[in-house]
């Protein structure tokens, strides 16, 4: 199941690096972190930030700084809110994208953030549905 998330992440990185200005890498990192909550996700955020800066000719390290700070801030909310829920994913995707696009001086910031939150929500629903079915199938098999 981690492979599915990592494949989504790799695809998002490629799309954002080459084709689109939508911050889909950030969305993929948010979903990865909320589903797995492992330390290696921070290294992934750091490395993908450097790659994105290379692809887009930004100052190297700028995107990594944002990704690392944002993911850490998300974890701080773990005590206050239930973070593995659709509303949290949608809201964090929206505000994360909004801040990222404002820092990168993109245009159509609101619409891109809105689209990112929709993509984040859909991806979260799809993965959660798949995960439930997979766990159900495994428990049925064990019986």
């Amino acid at each position, binding site marked *: 199941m981690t492979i599915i998330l990592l494949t989504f992440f790799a695809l998002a990185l490629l799309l954002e690096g*080459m084709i689109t200005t939508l911050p889909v890498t950030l969305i993929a990192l948010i979903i990865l972190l909320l589903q797995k909550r492992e330390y290696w996700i921070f290294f992934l*955020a750091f490395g993908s930030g450097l790659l994105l800066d*290379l692809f887009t000719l930004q100052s190297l390290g700028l995107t990594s*700084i944002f990704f690392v700070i944002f993911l850490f801030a998300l974890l701080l909310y773990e005590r206050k809110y239930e973070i593995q829920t659709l509303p949290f994913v949608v809201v964090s995707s929206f505000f994360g994208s909004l801040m990222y696009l404002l820092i990168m001086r993109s245009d159509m910031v609101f619409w891109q953030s809105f689209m990112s939150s929709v993509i984040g929500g859909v991806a979260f629903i799809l993965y959660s549905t798949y995960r439930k079915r997979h766990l159900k199938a495994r428990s049925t098999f064990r019986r």
Partner: protein
Amino acid sequence: MPRKNQYFFLFFSLFFSAIVILLVSTTAFFRPVRSLAELSISPLQHVTSFLFSISQTAASSTSLVEENRKLLSQITKLKETEKEYQALKKQFQNTPVSPAKLLPAQIVGRRTFVPGVSESREILINKGAKDGLKKGMVVIIEDMVVGKVATVSERMSRVSLITQSTGTTAKTLDTNALGVIQKQGDTLVFGNVVLSEKISPGDIVITVGEQDESGLGYPPGLIIGKIISIDKKPSALFQAAEVTSPIILSRETTVFVIMP
């Protein structure tokens, strides 16, 4: 799941590593490292850009667009020749740029909000500082303006398109009405045109020429676009016109940089 202390340590170490990389990357010492990294990702960029341009070319008819561009270019050249002959000008202000001064470059990146639907604000080309590129150099296709080099690294450059212009002096080909090309929302506007100047839909807008002593900046006579509508109020001091560029970048793979 790791403990909170480990998260804090990890966060601070990665954060400070990113800060260090950000600071070091601006120094000359880091250029070979960046150059090597860009060299390793350039095949991927070329393949993706090539596949994207194929899909855009297959999706629509290019022959009419190409013909329209060529006709626009020919009309401009004929009108220029006619003006020079009639006015007996001494200087050739609107001649095309000499081919010897043009450096061809491949477009390796064109990121947009919705690929294939919305237009790019900028493009990435595969020429950089090692090819002699500098910030401010003009990028064209035939004799039409694409934009200016905004950022240069060792092997790649980012070109800010004319549609993102924040104030380029221009004039109409027929009536020499002077104005400023600016971005307003999603449209390109030829504004600050004095009310007494005569402009009309279909007029071709060209660059006036704003090169500095080092040769950087728009040379005169390059086509920016065509006027499609005019906003003229008798009570206002100036009039403005919406301009459309003849270039559809999603279908282009090669641009040319004017080397001073």
